[in-house]
């Protein structure tokens, strides 16, 4: 097979764009396994579509996050009644105003002109009122959506606050202080970790802001091997003392560590900055 011709035919683009039939798609997938060049080309096309998707991102309404999580929770529960569909909005019936048959007698022309002028003014006014109403509607919708996100973020803050309190009284919670491994540099971070639930929280106490193109990465050392817990946003470094819940659960380990890595992190730590034994 001529790979170059294959690539230039456009079939790989059609594959990524989802424009192939079942059979054609299966054929491309089989070829992909045989020829790594094809897989590489497909990956490059997919990357472009990803950038495209990112450029067109649109935030869903704030309440969706909780709603979807509830849906995920509910599916494990016994058969739920299907969600009621929002009632179809009744379409407003157009108002029909019947015109009276024109009077038989001809009206003077000034009268006709006056009527037309009045009609014109009325149409204009209606149009202006309508557009004003639409604007108001838009403003209301905007404010409702702002309220919506405010409410959600307030709920989140409250939930986090409650979690923080629960954590402080949780006796299974361990506090691990990570101290500087770089002589002469003052660096401290703290981990709060519950072995029971696997939950953990990170607080940066004093760490210098990483230079451009670098980021801190958090690790847990499990049986001598560092396992990444994620790359730390510089936001957290700037806001020393802010407690952040780690999304990743940790079931065990001997130490927590923070290292300095290139932006986006590395699979293994390069320059260890602070370590704290559990």
């Amino acid at each position, binding site marked *: 097979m001529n790979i170059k011709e294959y690539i*230039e*035919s*456009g*079939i790989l*683009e*059609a594959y*990524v*764009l*989802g*424009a*192939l*039939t079942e059979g054609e798609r299966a054929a491309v997938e089989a070829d992909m396994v045989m020829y790594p060049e094809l897989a590489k080309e497909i*990956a*490059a*096309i*997919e*990357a*472009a*579509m*990803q*950038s*495209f*998707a*990112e*450029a*067109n*991102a*649109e*935030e*869903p*309404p704030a309440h*969706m*996050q909780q*709603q*979807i*999580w509830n*849906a*995920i929770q509910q*599916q494990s529960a016994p058969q739920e009644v299907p969600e009621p569909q*929002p009632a179809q909005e009744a379409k407003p019936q157009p108002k029909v105003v019947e015109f009276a048959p024109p009077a038989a007698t001809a009206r003077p022309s000034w009268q006709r002109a006056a009527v037309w002028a009045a009609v014109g003014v009325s149409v204009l006014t209606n149009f202006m009122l309508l557009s004003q109403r639409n604007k108001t509607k838009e403003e209301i919708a905007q404010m409702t959506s702002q309220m919506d996100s405010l409410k959600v973020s307030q709920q989140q803050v409250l939930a986090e606050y409650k979690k923080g309190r629960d954590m402080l009284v949780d006796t299974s919670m361990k506090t691990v202080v990570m101290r500087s491994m770089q002589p002469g540099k003052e660096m401290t971070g703290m981990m709060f970790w519950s072995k029971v639930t696997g*939950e953990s929280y*990170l607080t940066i106490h004093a760490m210098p802001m990483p230079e451009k193109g670098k980021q801190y990465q*958090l690790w847990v050392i499990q049986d001598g091997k560092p396992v*990444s*817990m*994620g*790359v*730390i*946003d510089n*936001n*957290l470094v700037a806001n020393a003392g802010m407690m*952040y*819940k*780690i*999304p*990743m*659960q940790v079931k065990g380990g001997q130490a927590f560590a923070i290292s300095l890595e290139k932006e*986006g*992190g590395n*699979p293994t730590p390069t320059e260890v900055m602070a370590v704290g034994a559990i």
Partner: protein
Amino acid sequence: MAPALTYSEEELVVLLKQQSQDAFNYLYKNYAGVLYGVIRKVVTDEQTAQDVLQDVFVKVWNNIGQYSTEKGRIYTWMINIARNAAIDKLRSKGEIMKSKIQTGEDAVYNVQKGMKTEQATDTIGLKEAVAALKPEHQTIVSLAYFKGFTMDEIARTLEIPLGTVKTRMRAAMQSLREYYNSN
């Protein structure tokens, strides 16, 4: 608050397999916007798009066990789930035929107008990459990616040979790649 920790693709898979609410929140914060954007390009109705978004998250959540890195990037995997779910919805609602006819007409109109970039931008909703794509390329990308047309259907709708559809797809994606690589 912006996410304070970020994960690589491999880490994200590990995180999702833990099935915790924190994992969900991370997933949602980082990907809901992109997925919703894709869905909205397919089904314009907001309520329907929100229903689809929910289905997509549930699907990603339930199927993460079957996902393996051999199947390609998890990002692509999720975007494809969103796109397919949205197109399925479009079809199930019986809107696809209507949409096909409409988009077909729009598309032809755009091709004929050729230079009328504004109109073409509307079909695809592509604001910034407009410089990268010629109108006839936008039409083809839009029909395939957002309306679920096969090459054959595109050829028939636009009344152009199948070979031209392929060539244009290739050219369109080449320009998109160039555009995003240089930005």
